[in-house]
């Protein structure tokens, strides 16, 4: 039976680098997916994910772990959200970067399912980073409104209204097809 995140965190705090490597292996793919769908750029996504784990490693003592394994993942997502904000300020990111580089591996497939995935990726690319971020955090990462508020550093009401507008924007982009 594998170790839980909490066990790996405890071992990491005591200097066990292999344990932290296990946490990286477990969470990096999911964080990368969130980052690339939010930023629309694979290189930026890799930088943000690396900065997230560097920050997490240095700040392990600040992780409280009150809610089991879901808490460590949520903590990482919170760190990554702040890294994305820093990245945005540094890069003055433009909101219309295409997502097709990593949106769907089967870009040449003729099936309806992969066409639908491409459509959604294409639609996402037309949204602002702010709207993509709330959609990704809610629909893919499954964060609650309160968790999103904590991660984004905004009130719960802001999360609700931002998510509502993001979905309207997504629908408008689909309606323009």
């Amino acid at each position: 039976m594998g170790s839980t995140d909490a066990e790996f965190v405890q071992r990491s705090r005591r200097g066990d680098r292999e344990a932290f490597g296990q946490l990286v292996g477990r969470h990096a793919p999911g964080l990368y997916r969130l980052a690339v769908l939010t930023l629309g750029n694979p290189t930026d996504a890799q930088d943000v994910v690396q900065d997230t784990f560097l920050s997490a490693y240095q700040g392990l003592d600040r992780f409280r772990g009150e809610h089991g394994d879901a808490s460590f993942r949520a903590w990482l997502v919170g760190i990554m959200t702040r890294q994305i904000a820093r990245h945005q300020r540094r890069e003055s990111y433009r909101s219309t970067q295409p997502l097709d580089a990593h949106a769907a591996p089967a870009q040449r497939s003729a099936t309806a399912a992969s066409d639908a995935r491409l459509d959604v990726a294409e639609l996402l690319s037309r949204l602002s980073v702010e709207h993509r971020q709330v959609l990704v955090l809610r629909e893919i990462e499954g964060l609650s409104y309160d968790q999103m508020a904590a991660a984004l550093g905004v009130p719960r009401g802001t999360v609700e209204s931002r998510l509502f507008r993001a979905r309207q924007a997504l629908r408008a982009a689909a309606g323009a097809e």
Partner: protein
Amino acid sequence: MTTCEHLNKVHAYHDGELPEPQRRAIEAHLRECRACAAELAWLERSREQLRSVDAPPPVFFVERLQRRMSQEPMRPALRLAWSLTAAAAAILVACVVQLSVTTNTHAADAEPATWEVLAIAPADVHAAPGDELQLAAWIARDLGSQP
């Protein structure tokens, strides 16, 4: 486009964020409002499509990241713990050395200085006969020389 004032509650219902009384109320409303029912159906479809978007990391990205993390310097908290332990050990050694040096110094200082002996034990010193006249002359001379 047909809208309804309850649309935002439909979104919260879709996200599982409505408390029980409001959830039941919206479920009842959905049975009667076509606009809200259509909105809910669209929300469920878009969620399914968003979740189906695959975006795997580049090949060897995770391995490179793990290697990068293994080269990261020791965490500050751990580094501080090691530093404090080393400092405590150094202080302990210094105390032991100082204690040893102090003990040897006290052993060498056991015998008092000669002037100390003279100052506290003048009783054995006596003037020889005739010295009283010489002593009186010196005192008179000294008194005469004072302003």
